[in-house]
């Protein structure tokens, strides 16, 4: 008897293990293949077609790191949305990180605020946004980091511009590599050898030409900018004439001076390497930019207030030295008549009407009065590299941003009068329970009597 009891016990054990295993398997499968029926009025929890299509087209992993405070209430909405995204693609992964608990991770992703969402592509490209997690922001970030379209950036050549292959201190090899990491493909373009700016150009960069561009080349650039093209001009002091006139057409005139900044010496530069700590808070390129940058041997710009916008200015103590003799002697002094005093404008941007297609995207031109800040020997300084990449990324900005209507229900306020409140409270707290109590007592009394 005892033995059979033991046998029965182990049988039971096996049986229960099998049952749990089977039920576990069913649940495992159900967690992987599920569907959701959204009964909310506007289908609030249903993702839009664009999002679903974007997710279904993913071919490599896209990871979203949600920097949200470790609080279930704060995380619920984000969790639901991110889980919904994951349902549509096995390549989509996500995780929560509390930036206070994991400051290193937050630092790695350069996160400064709660509710920042970083979307990271398989090639390391990152997109981030802060605030409420909306489908529109998340989907657009995914599109950006997962698009396999390589953006071509052309550096003009033939006028003594910086060499993107060169490894000498004043060359551009380092910044070219940094661009490649951001999914750009930098190439040298000799304009005289082509008839037209290549159609695949995301950005054209004219980096510190020693000689003026030819009239025909400027015409190509003009046509390009007037039809929605994006260009970055880095113009060094004491060079160029017709190119300056070309830039002035768009409202950014490079001045004939060299910026002197005595303060920058304390930062490790010399008098002729102005430091920049003040950036436009209005413009998208520099809005969140906080690093110090240094521009060795730079000239100031004079933007036309109507056409152009300031991006970066030098310190108050700096001035624009226009006497070449003084510069040559190495003894510069501020001369009220000739020199312009700080803060001086070092970078500016102009938006250009699209003449070919007025509804199409606008052309953008950014001019900086220096090209050396991005050269091999200076690129590592302060925020120089970031500034250059910010500009390149912004200029190459994705044209097509998907717009998804937010489906949050409208606010629907409801207020009650005093009497209504009493009535509702009376019915729900007293009326209903009382009714039940009466029925209960009646039933029980009757049962006892019978």
């Amino acid at each position, binding site marked *: 008897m005892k033995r059979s*009891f033991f046998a*029965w016990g182990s049988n*039971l054990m096996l*049986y*229960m293990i099998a*049952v*749990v295993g089977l*039920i576990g398997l*069913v*649940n495992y499968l*159900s*967690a992987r293949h*599920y*569907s*959701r*029926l*959204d*009964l*909310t*009025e506007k289908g*609030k*929890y249903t993702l839009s077609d664009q999002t679903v299509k974007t997710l279904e087209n993913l071919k490599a992993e896209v990871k979203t790191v949600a920097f949200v405070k*470790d609080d*279930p209430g704060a*995380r*619920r909405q984000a*969790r*639901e949305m991110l889980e919904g995204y994951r349902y549509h693609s096995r390549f989509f992964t996500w*995780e*929560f990180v509390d930036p206070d608990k994991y400051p290193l991770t937050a630092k790695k992703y350069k996160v400064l605020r709660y509710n920042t969402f970083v979307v990271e592509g398989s090639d390391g490209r990152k997109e981030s946004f802060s605030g409420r997690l909306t489908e529109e922001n998340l989907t657009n970030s995914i599109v950006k980091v997962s698009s396999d379209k390589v953006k071509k950036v052309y550096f003009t050549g033939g006028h003594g511009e910086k060499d993107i292959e060169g490894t000498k201190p004043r060359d551009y090899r380092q910044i070219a590599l940094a661009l490649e990491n951001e999914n750009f493909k930098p190439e040298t373009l000799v304009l005289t050898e082509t008839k037209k700016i290549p159609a695949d150009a995301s950005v054209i960069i004219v980096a510190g030409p020693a000689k003026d561009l030819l009239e025909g080349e400027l015409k190509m650039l003009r046509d390009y900018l007037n039809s929605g093209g994006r260009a970055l001009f880095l113009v060094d002091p004491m060079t160029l004439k017709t190119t300056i006139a070309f830039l002035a057409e768009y409202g950014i005139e490079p001045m004939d001076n060299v910026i002197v900044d005595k303060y920058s010496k304390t930062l490790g530069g010399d008098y002729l390497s102005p430091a920049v700590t003040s950036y436009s808070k209005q413009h998208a390129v520099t809005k969140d930019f906080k690093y110090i940058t240094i521009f060795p041997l730079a000239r100031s710009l004079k933007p036309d207030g109507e056409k152009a916008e300031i991006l970066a200015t030098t310190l108050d103590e700096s001035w624009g030295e226009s006497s070449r003799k003084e510069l040559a002697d190495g003894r510069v002094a501020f001369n009220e008549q000739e020199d312009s005093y700080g803060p001086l404008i070092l970078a500016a941007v102009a938006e250009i009407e699209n003449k070919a297609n007025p509804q199409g995207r606008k052309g953008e031109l950014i001019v900086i009065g220096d090209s050396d800040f991005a050269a091999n020997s200076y690129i590592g300084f302060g925020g120089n590299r970031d500034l250059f990449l910010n500009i390149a990324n912004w200029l190459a900005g994705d044209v097509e941003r998907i717009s998804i209507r937010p489906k*949050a*229900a*409208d*606010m*629907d*306020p*409801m*207020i*009650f009068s005093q009497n*209504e*409140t009493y009535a*509702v*409270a009376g*019915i*729900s*707290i*007293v009326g*209903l*329970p009382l009714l*039940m*109590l009466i*029925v*209960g*007592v009646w*039933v*029980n009394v009757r*049962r006892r009597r019978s």
Partner: protein
Amino acid sequence: MKNILAVYLKELKVYFSGPIAYFVGVIFLVVSGIFFILILNDYARISFEVIRTNYQFKLPQLNVTDGIFSPMFHTFSFLLLLMVPLLTMKSFSEEKKTGTIELALTYPLRGTELVLGKLFAVLTVYFSMLLLTASYGAMILYFKPFPPGVPVAGYLGLLLLGFAFISLGIFISSLTENQIIAAAVSFGAIMLFWLVGAVAGDSTMPIADIMRYISLREHFHSFAAGVIDTRDVVYYLSFGLLFIIATLRALESRRFRG
């Protein structure tokens, strides 16, 4: 099937002619009524703020679905967690104590029929208690019409949740002769499955995924928000099924030993 019905009707009669169901119902209605008024007051207070600032004060949750139904269903789910052990405690404990279980088991009645009949009876008591709260919805409807989808999902969720709660409660009741112990242990066990997901928090470890998955509470969020997710339905049904099977084994062991 006929046997299930017979057990079901008999059990139902016991519940509705005894004091426990009414006692539990009154407590549940008083407490949920208080919560309902609190939620409503909160909603009115925020509404007032929004109107006063001429809609400048933005609060996207200020709609009947997110502002009233969702918190209300969450409250119900928690209150029912407290009530269910009182409904299930006597399922088998009493019969075990009085010995009528032997009688029941010697009938030409299969264990499955007995367990299912009892389970459906408790579920009926549970849901009829819950349906009285539909009057809250009717009161809201008087002030503000709302689409029916969200409450449908919410009540379906509560029904499934109740199925899970009750099977666990019945299982525990089949293990002991003492009703107090049955209620206390059921309460503890339900609470354990309720909170295990919160213990896991947002950890990304695989064990945390499992803990969140087996947690009764984690599967209720979608229902409360107006979404019926097959994962949650499958989970609650499997949870209930597992404990029905466990109950059957427990009864069988008694038969074997007895």
